């Protein structure tokens, strides 16, 4: 099935974006092919339960939302001296070979309609390059979106025995254009042998925004990729966070937290592919839905035939604060190698009335008791977040929402 094609998207626009960034021909070609592919490829998969598609991406009015040439943002891209943290244009000028090797190597630009759209139109981005043996903390990327649409691309490459901690925040500027907006991001992480990447992303875009993001990592031998994914903003978010464990002894942890209220909708995919021996994955997500918010979570642990001695754990818990909110969670475990220790679980529940009475009977107001229960509910996720700054930011956003 083909998806809608943009009448107002043209090859000229793509050439202009690429030209402004002084991109080499191969990159322009990749973009143009992605543009052309929009005619034939479909939206990413969404969860379906009988009689229902939980997230209807076809309903989005891309014709209005996508305005590729009028992009505007405030961006900070900072890191310590021994790490290269480059805006996309500079990376094109200085590291063409690196980009040629890795760009699109993990997330296929033509994987689905939204990756193709993002590849064809991205006008901003960051490349983080960590040389061999360098340990770097405090790489921060802050994106404040001000335009109708913004397409962003991030590449992280860590060489052997290096490590890096990256914190990325997305928000909407105070002088952003009015009305609905669309934010799109692809993140590719290439973790070299025995290197370690910790990538935290905190999405707090305005609630008239839609966002699509696909973050995927490739972990080499003994490499570690840890993702932290916080979703607070937007009207609708479709997000994938995933790791390919391609090297023996590689590891990943994917920690997620979300808090939806009003009419927010979160569609979250978490995935790990075990493709080598002695690999370990730990997927932990907790989320809250209030008012008429909806969340749908799909977690997949895919243990390949050659993945001997795999350890893989997944748990997801959603707490619904209102009778009108909805949540669906589907943890999936695919095992093609019996030498695997694995667990997967998901729960969807509401606040326990006995818990609430216990707390209020001690003098705490129902509202404050609820807030304490919600903060307590997030604690198991917070405990997994090793980056203090990220945890504190997320706690602050959760508290703000509780005070609502």
């Amino acid at each position, binding site marked *: 099935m083909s998806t809608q094609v943009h009448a107002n998207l043209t090859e000229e626009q793509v050439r202009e974006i690429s030209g402004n960034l002084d991109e080499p021909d191969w990159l322009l070609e990749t973009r143009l092919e992605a543009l052309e592919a929009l005619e034939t490829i479909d939206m990413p998969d969404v969860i379906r339960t009988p009689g229902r598609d939980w997230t209807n991406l076809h309903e989005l009015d891309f014709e209005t939302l996508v305005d590729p040439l009028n992009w505007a943002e405030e961006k900070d891209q900072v890191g310590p001296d021994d790490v290269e943290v480059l805006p996309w244009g500079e990376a094109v000028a200085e590291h063409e070979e690196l980009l040629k090797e890795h760009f699109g190597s993990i997330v296929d630009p033509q994987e689905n309609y939204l990756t193709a759209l993002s590849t064809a139109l991205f006008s901003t981005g960051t490349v983080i390059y960590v040389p061999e043996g360098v340990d770097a903390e405090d790489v921060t990327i802050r994106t404040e979106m001000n335009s109708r649409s913004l397409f962003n691309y991030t590449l992280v490459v860590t060489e052997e025995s290096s490590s890096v901690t990256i914190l990325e925040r997305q928000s909407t500027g105070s002088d952003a254009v009015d009305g609905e907006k669309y934010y799109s991001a692809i993140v590719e992480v290439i973790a070299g042998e025995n290197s370690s990447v910790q990538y935290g992303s905190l999405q707090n875009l305005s609630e008239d925004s839609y966002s699509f993001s696909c973050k995927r990592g490739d972990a080499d031998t003994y490499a570690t990729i840890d993702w932290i994914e916080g979703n607070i903003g937007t009207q609708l978010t479709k997000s994938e966070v995933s790791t390919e464990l391609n090297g023996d002894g590689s590891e990943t942890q994917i920690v997620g937290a979300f808090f939806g209220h009003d009419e927010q909708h979160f569609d979250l995919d978490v995935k790990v592919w075990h493709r080598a021996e002695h690999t370990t994955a730990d997927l932990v997500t907790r989320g809250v839905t209030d008012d008429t918010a909806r969340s749908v979570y799909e977690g997949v642990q895919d243990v390949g035939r050659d993945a001997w001695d795999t350890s893989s754990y997944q748990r997801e818990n959603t707490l619904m604060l209102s009778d009108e909110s909805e949540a669906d969670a589907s943890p999936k475990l695919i095992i093609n190698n019996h030498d695997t220790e694995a667990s997967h679980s998901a729960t969807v529940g509401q606040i326990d009335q006995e818990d609430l009475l*216990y*707390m209020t009977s001690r003098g*705490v*107001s129902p509202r404050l008791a609820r807030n304490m229960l919600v903060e*307590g509910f997030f604690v*198991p996720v917070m405990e997994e977040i090793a980056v203090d700054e990220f945890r504190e930011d997320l706690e602050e956003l959760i*508290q703000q929402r509780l005070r609502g």
Partner: protein
Amino acid sequence: MTGTPHTLHDRGNRKMARLQLNNLHAEVAEEGGEQILRGVDLEVESGEIHALMGPNGSGKSTTAKIIAGHPAYEVTEGEVLLHLEEGDFGEDFDIPEDKRTWDILDLEPNERAALGIFLAFQYPAEIEGVTMTNFLRTALNAKLEERDELFEDEEGEDDAAEEEDEGFETSPMEGPADDGEVGVAEFQEILQEKMEQLDMDAKFAQRYLNAGFSGGEKKQNEVLQAAILEPSIAVLDEIDSGLDIDRLQDVANGINALRDVQGTGVLQITHYQRILDYVEPDHVHVMLDGEIAKSGGPELAEQLEDKGYDWVREEVYETA
């Protein structure tokens, strides 16, 4: 942190309240819900210890839950009155004469707590992610704040209305929000002292509320919470079940201290004479089929221990 003594004005103060259940009828709050209480009359005064005994299903726990405000039960007749006296919340807390009697059935559970009612649960909830310290400090401050509101709101004072607006702004993760609060350091001292009195390990303070506690630890924790919140009337629902003898002693000491130090009135629901050897009741009541069938002194508990409940039942039928 100022920590002026007036924030803890009831500390060490003798209570003078009286809880009065009049002709209380209640049923399970659902379509065609079973009637459980059929006219309970009972009075507990500060400084007294009452034991409420009776076979399973006689309505003891239901009575406790209704006093606390459990939504699972509906009162169909009768009232639960709380009578306060001047000085009940400390010398400098003014209780106007027209606010000395409350029908607590009209109040939310947290408002009842603010007036000095406490229920120790038979099965305390396990609350993950909320530390004992955080919860108890929040509860103590919320109780003091709510009490101020209950006694201020109709007097039309300007600042009272303002305070109410800010009521829910206080997040437990933030520090003291206004000068009436018990601060972190001050609270730590109170908590430590009370835990030592109950022979509780200091590590409990940083554990999550009841999470992973043994049955006995939970019961100890209920008494600790009562000691910190300093209720006028404490209802203890089978506080003695699941306790080994050492812990029973600790819990009993805690209950006696509630009465002796603060003058709390205790309504102790129990199946067993055992705890009454350590916490000697002033009054013993036997509940049968949703009514108080017989009341007496401590000797009544011993008779029950020897002879069971049937003789009480026979006696009641004979009289009838």
